[in-house]
């Protein structure tokens, strides 16, 4: 049953099908899923890396790191590493890479996402020692730096590069644009040699097609499958850090009334949605981050499905003169996650049952960004935006800075008290930090209610029987080829 596939190469080539072609392999765009999934930890590597399962930072190009001052961290680097073009890896290249990703005009995606607006000062003290200074104290700087992929100094600082040089276990062998991308094993890799001599990426937009390629043995790995795509036995589910939620424009009536926002939370039958549309691993969500992320609040219970309560709240608000009949636009982005259309339709229906007027609007990525990011669209009335948030970093700060501060890039409103809580939490570390964030999530559910969180999603990866791989929470963003071994 292997018609037309390149079965012969299966032994030493790992064939992977992605949902989309990476637009570029630029390392500083690593936080873009399409790019990072190929680049990160395969072609290039960061200084440190977070273990998605344990949440601990692990050494990679840096062997040790410590805070050496209020605003300074010092890293000790490996001395036995060379880039795939043969140039040695030094602290200078690390400093260069940080500078390039964070301080340049390239407009790298990590810049805003991982680091705030402030610049970093990275200095190579000697070949193996690097210091990084921040403007304000930053307890999780090493975690942030795990998003900066290290490139040699020969890399352009004025243009993004399509095919980067890195220290990773693989390097780009060929890229037939539009068709396939091949990586070859980097024989000078400083660590253990990976099992597969090369990896071949292809991309198909349709999940069913990706699953079909897997079942017909044209690929060994199919990424980003949905529950009905048909991978069958070959589909492996994994908790993928993604949380689906409705975000309210809490500054526009009637969503500016907390009772309405609460009513919506009561109106959503989360168990019903997950039970009928998704496979078992999906969990009802009570907060924006899944377990495993620092700050996850164990004790939060999801909102109950209570239509009567919802109706009562709406009526109460109506009685107080809140214009609850104003049409609320439920905005969802096409193919944000599997079955997004279905979920949106269910939400629309359920919100309507609570007595609200809801219009559904499915938009494309560019349009949805208008709703998602500041400056928000103002003239379209109250908006409930369906968002999917994935905290790749494992620390709640990445979530709350974006989604909860009054002027957060993806936050529609906040309160001064809440802002103070958020700022304070960011400065703490260790258990204190975790406790502070747990508090924050509880507070948001009680006092703010900007979100109606719905589910912690599971991802599905399709694996051929010839391949051995255990997906983890980061699999959706980063597929480390080195983790794959032939089965048996």
């Amino acid at each position: 049953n292997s018609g037309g596939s390149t079965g012969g190469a299966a032994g030493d080539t790992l064939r992977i099908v992605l949902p989309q072609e990476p637009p570029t392999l630029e390392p500083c765009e690593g936080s873009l899923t399409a790019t990072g999934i190929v680049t990160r930890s395969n072609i290039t590597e960061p200084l440190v890396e977070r273990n998605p399962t344990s949440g601990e930072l692990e050494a990679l190009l840096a062997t040790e790191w410590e805070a050496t001052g209020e605003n300074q961290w010092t890293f000790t680097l490996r001395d036995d590493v060379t880039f795939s073009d043969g140039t040695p890896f030094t602290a200078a290249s690390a400093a260069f890479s940080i500078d390039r990703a964070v301080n340049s005009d390239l407009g790298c995606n990590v810049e805003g996402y991982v680091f705030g607006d402030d610049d970093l000062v990275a200095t190579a003290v000697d070949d193996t020692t690097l210091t990084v200074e921040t403007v304000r104290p930053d307890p999780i700087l090493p975690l942030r730096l795990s998003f900066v992929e290290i490139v040699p100094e020969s890399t352009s600082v004025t243009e993004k590069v399509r095919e980067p040089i890195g220290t990773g276990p693989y390097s780009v062998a060929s890229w037939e644009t539009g068709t396939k991308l091949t990586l070859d094993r980097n024989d000078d890799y400083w660590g253990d040699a990976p099992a597969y001599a090369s990896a071949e990426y292809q991309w198909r937009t349709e999940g069913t097609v990706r699953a079909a390629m897997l079942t017909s043995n044209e690929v060994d790995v199919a990424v980003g499958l949905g529950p009905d795509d048909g991978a069958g036995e070959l589909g492996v589910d994994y908790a993928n850090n993604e949380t689906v939620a409705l975000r309210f424009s809490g500054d526009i009536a009637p969503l500016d009334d907390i009772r309405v926002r609460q009513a919506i939370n009561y109106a959503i039958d989360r168990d019903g949605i997950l039970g009928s549309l998704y496979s078992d691993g999906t969990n009802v969500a009570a907060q924006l981050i899944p377990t495993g992320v620092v700050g996850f609040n164990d004790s939060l219970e999801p909102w109950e499905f209570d239509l009567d309560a919802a109706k009562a709240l709406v009526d109460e608000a109506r009685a107080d003169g809140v214009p609850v009949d104003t049409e609320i636009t439920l905005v969802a982005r096409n193919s944000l996650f599997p079955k997004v259309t279905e979920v949106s339709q269910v939400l629309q229906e359920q919100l309507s049952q609570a007595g609200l007027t809801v219009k559904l609007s499915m938009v494309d990525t560019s349009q949805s960004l208008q709703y998602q990011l500041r400056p928000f669209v103002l003239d379209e009335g109250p908006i409930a935006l369906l968002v999917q948030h994935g905290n790749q970093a494992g620390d709640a700060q990445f979530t709350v800075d974006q989604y909860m501060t009054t002027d957060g890039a993806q936050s529609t409103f906040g309160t001064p008290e809440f802002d103070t809580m958020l700022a304070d939490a960011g400065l703490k570390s260790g258990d204190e930090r975790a406790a502070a964030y747990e508090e924050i999530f509880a507070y948001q559910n009680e006092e703010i209610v900007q979100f109606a969180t719905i589910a912690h999603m599971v991802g599905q990866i399709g694996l051929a029987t010839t391949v051995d791989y255990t997906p983890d929470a980061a699999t959706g963003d980063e597929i480390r080829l080195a983790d794959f071994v032939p089965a048996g």
Partner: protein
Amino acid sequence: MSPQLPDPQLPPGGRAIAPPSTQAMTLNVVESLPDKKASLFRLLLRDRFATAAAVVLVLVALTAVFGPVLMGDLATKQNLSATNRPPFSLADGWQFVLGSDSLGRSMLARLVVATRTTLSVAVPAVLISLLIGSLWGVWAGYHRGRRETISMRIGDVIMSFPSLLLAVVVLYVFNPSIANIVLILALTRIPIYLRTARAESAELQSRTFVDAARTFGTAPNAIIRRHVIPVVLPTMLTLATLEFCYVMLAESSLSFLGIGIQPPDVSWGLMVAQGRQYLQTAWWLSLFPGLAIVITTVAANMLAAWLRIATDPAQRWRLTLPRKRFIARMSPKEVK
């Protein structure tokens, strides 16, 4: 045998041109008018395929008009505990005879309601582009010269314009309402009619009977109305049915790309597009709406083909013969 009218005798001299009495004739003409329509209907009944096609189309139209009322909110009523029920089972009630979809809604009700949406996209889109394209093309072809050249180049422009871009722009700048989808589909299909109508009209305007009309002083617009349009019309109608099919498909492609009809509205195209994910688990989600498209298209096309023959005096005989004999007759090799 019909009673023979008194022969208007032209005497050998031909001098007596006295107009004969006119009563009999007037009667005759009045009679013949309703006759024409009735006979078209009778002609239709004689052709089994065309009759079947007409019946299908009437049913589709009736469904579009009355169906949504009959179905009430059944089409949007979700039941998350009864999703993807297979068809042809009455266990869950008549609503689920065609199964249920991924949100537990009745497929039957959704198909019925989608009929109206689908037709209210396809029919206006086809009619608008048919009307504009044909009239424009006929006008350009009749007058020829610069008007023709410019029109054709405009047609080229529209044709080589990526219609998807247009769709995204309109749907982005405005919103993906039915009216906007109609607008886009209508606009992008105008050149097809324009080109065809122009070619026919350019050829027709050089015909002698058009020259004859000119010699009476008939104004160009009247000539277009009287001589060009009736000849061009059947062609355009046939084209319109092909386009009808195209528009339904284009609408479903838009849905495939996520910019078509927006839920909770539902069209056949949208149903196929959304059902495709369930092809392996619930084939009926996309098969039934697909069948609806196919059947409607085929019926429309058959009827148009029939109409084309029925309205063409030079072809009408094909329809008037008893079938068996007719087929025997058609052999071009026939000798005796």
